[in-house]
């Protein structure tokens, strides 16, 4: 659509025409501000907890258990050095044998959501599907934060499961 518009503008006498090819999706995914009726509505990226503990595949579970507990969490997100999300350690996995590696204990490949999704949409998804947490990532998989159902429900005034 955008390339056709750019070409059309040239036929109408515009000499200097450019195309921001990756468009509004790229802008929103980067968490940048917008204008319009949705601009003031809360979005997943703003509500997601940025202080969620993270860990790496090659760590012992016992190290992550200690760190997560000290931080007051019962979940950790498994990432690489680029903060790309590989998995989740929820309370159940964190309670496992501390000698295991994170790579053995984690729930791999969790579904992730983009930061621009409106909180009201996220609340519906998380309540309907009984998801307590949802990793929020950029379009290239980098962790933005962990969205908690209770936070997003509170943000939109819905009842939690």
């Amino acid at each position, binding site marked *: *659509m*955008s*390339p*056709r*518009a*750019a*070409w*059309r*503008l*040239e036929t*109408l*006498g*515009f*000499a*200097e*025409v*450019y*195309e*921001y*090819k*990756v*468009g*509004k*999706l*790229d*802008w*929103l995914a*980067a968490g940048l*501000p*917008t*204008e*319009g*009726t*949705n*601009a003031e509505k809360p979005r997943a990226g703003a509500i997601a907890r940025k202080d969620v503990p993270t860990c790496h595949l090659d760590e012992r579970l016992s190290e992550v258990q200690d760190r997560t507990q000290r931080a007051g969490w019962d979940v950790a997100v498994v990432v690489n050095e680029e903060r790309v999300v590989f998995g989740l350690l929820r309370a159940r996995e964190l309670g496992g044998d501390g000698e295991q590696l994170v790579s053995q204990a984690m729930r791999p490949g969790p579904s992730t959501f983009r930061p621009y999704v409106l909180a009201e949409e996220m609340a519906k998804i998380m309540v309907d599907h009984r998801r307590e947490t949802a990793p929020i990532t950029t379009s290239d998989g980098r962790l933005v934060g962990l969205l908690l159902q209770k936070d997003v429900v509170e943000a939109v005034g819905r009842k939690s499961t």
Partner: protein
Amino acid sequence: MPSEIGREEMRRMVADGAQLLEVLPAEEYAEDHLPGAISIPLPHIDAESVKVLEKDRAVITYCWDVA
């Protein structure tokens, strides 16, 4: 031939005075658009509608993504 640019280049050009043009349907523009963007949905681009743009300044078009 229109040139493709990325986000940072686009931001720099807008700061330097380029015009941003969203070509998605008006309803989508009304919900969310980039700061300062003008709306002319693709089917409505013609000699009359583009009068809101200045021909001696750069124009950057965008839609939702690469589609």
